[in-house]
């Protein structure tokens, strides 16, 4: 109850004797009174000319939420959206990359001819500009495809059906039914997903939704997953199917993320955030013809450019920092290599190495710069390199001792590690609590270390066995 000031108390004192005793009865009578009037007016103003029965829409609804087809359709649509995003983003990404790196060459020439000091050229062009160019060319095309597709499904009215289908799982996990919607939003961008948790009224359940949002693979992590999936899974089949298999591998990681979301929600609602699921009402609005123009404008302005701008703002300083670390030397070793050396033992235990871990750490500002930092680390070239093909990347990774176990562990750790800086900042803004923000980083990180440890050790044992058999 809010604190009532002096005037308010006085009024209450005067009014109190007039208030009848049974409050809940009065509330009922007030609502009933309003509805009676509403019914009365609408009865006079609305004429039903024909009964509206089992139309196409109702049949469609029946199929989308049916016992047997509900889940397969959801899985199919998810795969389809990702496949369109992955396939469609390929060419524009290359085009953007070549354009932006052509500009880089011109800028580099300009700096050299104008006699700028090499450290300045390094920080500005090889650090800042390169990471910006990478983020824009890698992020923009998939987002410009993914967000409109997502908004299209939203506009059609499909998302409430997804929530309707999946609610039972969330209910059992002690979470709010709408968490399904915030989870979907997280696939676009975790920061946007965290903000969307506002639709959940109960503070306990909103916190659960916020803390688990990072388990939705976001657009910043898709490129990493897609590249690694294509390199290590795609080569198993013919070239024509490689992007399909890569898509399926990414879908598998997404499904694992959803399972983790449910599991962590379950654990949280029985430990730190105990309580019963709060009352939940889900409106299933009629399907409506989407407004394509509005979808494009809204998703490009409100989502794509918004997310891209944030990434750009963060990637520029991160790029500069990376360049400085890689080009500052203590004795003969760069600081970058030094830190990588410290982290290496831990990385080896988790099926990875020191450079991979440092790439995850430096990727804190924005997940999309993970891969460029990794490449830079391996090449030790002191600046981010755009390899001209995935084949070159494959050779580079194999040269540094990567196996399918390494790729799997990196993909798992990409799913299960701390959220990006923007998301953490958003979590802090939404929860206004440093404690929960730290928890939001620690929970997935602890899980990630645990899972990669188990997978790595397990895979080694299996490898030993199979080696024993074949030997």
């Amino acid at each position, binding site marked *: 109850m809010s604190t009532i000031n002096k005037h308010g108390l006085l009024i209450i004192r005067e009014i109190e004797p007039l208030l009848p005793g049974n409050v809940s009865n009065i*509330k009922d009578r007030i609502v009933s009174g309003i509805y009676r009037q509403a019914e009365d007016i609408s009865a006079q103003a609305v004429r039903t000319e024909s009964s509206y029965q089992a139309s196409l829409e109702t049949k469609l609804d*029946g199929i989308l939420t049916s016992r047997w087809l509900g889940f397969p359709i959801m899985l199919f649509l998810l795969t389809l959206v990702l496949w369109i995003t992955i396939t469609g983003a390929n060419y524009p990404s290359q085009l953007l990359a070549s354009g932006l790196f052509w500009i880089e060459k011109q800028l580099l020439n300009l700096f050299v001819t104008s006699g700028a000091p090499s450290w300045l050229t390094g920080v500005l062009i090889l650090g800042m500009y390169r990471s910006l160019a990478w983020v824009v060319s890698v992020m923009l095309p998939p987002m410009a495809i993914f967000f409109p597709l997502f908004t299209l499904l939203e506009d059609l009215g499909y998302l409430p059906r997804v929530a309707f289908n999946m609610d039972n799982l969330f*209910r059992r996990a002690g979470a709010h039914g709408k968490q399904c919607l915030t989870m979907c939003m997280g696939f676009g961008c975790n920061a946007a997903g965290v903000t969307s948790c506002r639709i959940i009224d109960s503070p306990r359940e909103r916190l659960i939704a916020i803390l688990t949002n990072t388990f939705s693979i976001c657009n910043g992590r898709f490129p990493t997953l897609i590249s690694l999936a294509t390199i290590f899974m795609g080569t198993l089949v013919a070239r024509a199917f490689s992007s399909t298999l890569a898509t399926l591998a990414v879908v598998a990681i997404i499904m694992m993320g959803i399972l983790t979301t449910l599991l962590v929600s379950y654990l949280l609602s029985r430990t730190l955030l105990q309580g019963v699921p709060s009352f939940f009402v889900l409106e299933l609005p009629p399907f409506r013809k989407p407004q394509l123009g509005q979808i494009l404008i809204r998703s490009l302005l409100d989502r794509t450019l918004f997310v891209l701008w944030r990434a750009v703002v963060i990637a520029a300083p991160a790029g500069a920092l990376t360049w400085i670390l890689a080009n500052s030397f203590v004795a003969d070793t760069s600081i970058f290599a030094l830190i990588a050396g410290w982290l290496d033992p831990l990385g080896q235990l988790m099926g990875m190495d020191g450079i991979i871990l440092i790439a995850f750490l430096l990727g804190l500002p924005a997940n999309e710069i993970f891969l460029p930092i990794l490449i830079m680390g391996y090449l030790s070239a002191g600046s981010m390199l755009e390899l001209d093909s995935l084949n070159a990347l494959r050779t580079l990774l194999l040269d540094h001792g990567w196996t399918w176990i390494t790729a799997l562990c990196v993909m798992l750790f990409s799913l299960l590690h701390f959220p990006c800086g923007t998301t953490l900042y958003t979590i802090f803004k939404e929860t206004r609590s440093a404690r929960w923000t730290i928890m939001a980083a620690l929970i997935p990180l602890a899980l990630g270390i645990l899972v990669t440890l188990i997978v790595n050790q397990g895979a080694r044992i299996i490898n030993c066995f199979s080696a024993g058999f074949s030997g």
Partner: protein
Amino acid sequence: MVIPNSLSLIDIPVGDSARVVNILTIGANRRRLLDLGLVPGSRVEVIRRSPAGNPTAYLIKGTLIALRNEDARQILVDTN
């Protein structure tokens, strides 16, 4: 309190409709249910259950609204 011979909304099979008699929920949630149009006397049609059987979608005053079964259990109805 046990009310003899009382049906709740979850007892109504899909495709049938019933009239709201009373709501057992108390507090703010009672108000939310009332605000949705579940006032005594109003008609509710059971439209479909989700794949897992919970929640269930009801047609309430022209709008399709899903309620979890444990919440719907608190809504007493008769089939007249």
